[in-house]
């Protein structure tokens, strides 16, 4: 039983940053902007949450700083992709490169060291919840989870509501499917895309804070280790839908949890590399249509020129 709880807790914990980042990816791609930069935005978020917490001693401010840094980073993508109509993939790649170098540079400038920071004194820790903590299984489980985990699921519900139940969501989806038609009915394509890319920046920044402030309490170079790309995979595997993306993240988190516990549950014979590769293989299979058809927003990746054609 303890093992099952440990696996569930690890799955939820590992899926949380992925859920935030992939929701960001969903917003951005639904509006027609491919966000390859999720990885870079996450590393910035991870860095600035630790930086702000170090100086203020208030983790909450760290979280806010991560989201602001995410928004600012995403604005680079927005400006180049939407305004200058640059190739979105190239810009995303540049941002990933810039963010990795920029945070490592600041690490040396501020802490005068490379590699990693010291742990911050106050971080966001797992708390037992009153009332629930006395319930046998649920209590054991929730005492291992941070507030980020709950926040992630709330964010899924809000994202679903916003995208499918509000006029804004309808506009976002129409801009991502057919910007020309959206423009014709008076929707400001640029504005919607800017908003969505900024939302995706805030969420990916939050994902970074979850990684640093929410788990190891410090910033380490390269700590995102491809999680931004897994989140991107989850967007596709989840068919560009908030709930689908969440399920994909839970699945990816589960495979990682299995890897950690593989010897304890008798899966030690499986090479860890196979479990590592599952999210990526699954995504390729999904794209190839072996796991149902995955069709993205039609205008995703296309820049839009007002008054074209």
């Amino acid at each position, binding site marked *: 039983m303890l093992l099952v709880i440990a696996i569930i807790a690890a799955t939820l914990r590992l899926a949380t940053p992925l859920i935030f980042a992939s929701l960001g990816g969903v917003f951005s791609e639904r509006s027609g902007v491919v966000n390859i930069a999720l990885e870079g935005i996450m590393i910035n978020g991870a860095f600035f949450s630790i930086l702000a917490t170090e100086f203020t001693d208030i983790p909450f401010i760290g979280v806010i700083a991560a989201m602001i840094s995410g928004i600012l980073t995403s604005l680079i993508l927005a400006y180049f992709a939407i305004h200058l109509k640059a190739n979105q993939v*190239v*810009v995303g*790649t540049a941002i990933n490169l810039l963010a990795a170098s920029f945070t490592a540079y600041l690490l040396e400038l501020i802490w005068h060291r490379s590699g990693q920071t010291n742990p911050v004194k106050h971080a966001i820790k797992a708390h037992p919840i009153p009332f629930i903590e006395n319930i046998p299984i649920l209590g054991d489980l929730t005492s291992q989870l941070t507030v980020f985990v709950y926040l992630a699921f709330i964010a899924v519900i809000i994202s679903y509501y916003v995208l499918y139940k509000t006029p804004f969501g309808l506009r976002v989806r129409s801009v991502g499917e057919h910007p020309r038609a959206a423009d014709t009915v008076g929707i400001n394509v640029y504005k919607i895309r800017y908003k969505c890319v900024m939302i995706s920046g805030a969420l990916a920044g939050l994902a970074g804070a979850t990684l640093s402030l929410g788990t190891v309490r410090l910033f380490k170079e390269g700590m995102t280790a491809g999680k931004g790309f897994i989140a991107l995979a989850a967007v596709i595997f989840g068919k560009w839908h908030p709930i689908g993306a969440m399920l994909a993240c839970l699945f990816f988190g589960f495979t990682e949890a299995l890897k950690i516990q593989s010897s304890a549950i008798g899966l030690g014979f499986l*090479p860890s*590399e196979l479990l590592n590769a599952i999210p990526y293989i699954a995504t*390729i299979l999904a*794209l*190839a249509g072996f796991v149902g058809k995955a069709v993205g927003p039609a205008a995703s990746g296309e820049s839009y020129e007002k008054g074209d054609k």
Partner: protein
Amino acid sequence: MATNKKDNMFKKFLDSFKIPFIAILLGFLIGAVFIIATGNSPFVAYGALLNGSLGSLPKIGETLLKSTPLIFTGLAVAFAFKTDMFNIGAEGQYLVGAITTVAAAYVFRGLDSYLLIPLTLIAGMLGGAFWASIAGILKAKLGVHEVIVTIMLNYVGLNLSNYLVRLVLNPAVINGTEAKAHTILIPEAARLTKLKTIIPAFDYSSVNTSIIIAIVCAIIAYFILYKTTLGYEIRAVGHSPLAAEYGGISVSKNMILSMAISGAFAGLAGYAQVAGLVYKVDQVASSPGYGFTGIAVALVGKEHPIGVIASGILFGILANGERHMQIEGIPKEVVGIIQGVIILFIAGDQIVKYLINRKNSKKEEVA
């Protein structure tokens, strides 16, 4: 008349490199701001960078060594660009090419150099080509976007390589000796000659004949693209798939082929690293970044094979120079920032065009 035409061609040639040139300049300018922020002088920093990578023949050798994988991955990205495909997976193709090189060197270990070197080279090439053609086939047959597939394949390739390093090509498995975090070493006969054995003035530098292979590959890429029917078809598909199809050119065949050739170049980057420098493959947590820098190399080289040689050397200078800047007390990450800025401004070339136009209109005002 004739000279006029030549002048025009020359002007066109210069014009096409205006944007990369200004982007590079902006990269160094913004880099200078970051250097000043550390309390150092950009002149000292860039002096150290240039002197460190070009100051003597051994230093130039080290720069060329750093340029070699970048020319290969730059060619890979540039070649795919010509079919309007984005190969963001040179990273994974590099890793697969490296591991197939070691595998071939082991399988054919008894052979002499003149057989072993071509065989391992072909193995590295095929490894990369195979890995990239997965994305090419999915794109051609099922319309799956190659960007996402190649990104995913980077990570699958990383894990595949780590698996083979740990459990198949490991000295513990093959020789029954102690387990290492790297593969067995490739035999002497498979290793490429260091240039210093031919030209002693290269001294301590490890630059080897793989730089020559890289330059030959760029010339071959140029010939394939601009002097053969295949190249014509590939470029036609890149320009307009519909028109190409109408003209009787098979779009899917050319997509797969161009992706495979692109991957072959990336695989050769892995081959060059194994056969020319490290003689083994290590277990790694993340890929070395040659694929992503390759995007920058291709963009700065205007996606032209010969341009790629020049920009590959430029990025080699940066990569070699960062160590020397660090000795002067400047964080080496400044180089990563410069690279990022260069890619950003080439991608958003409108800003650069705007800067050029403003300069021109000012000139006209003065006139």
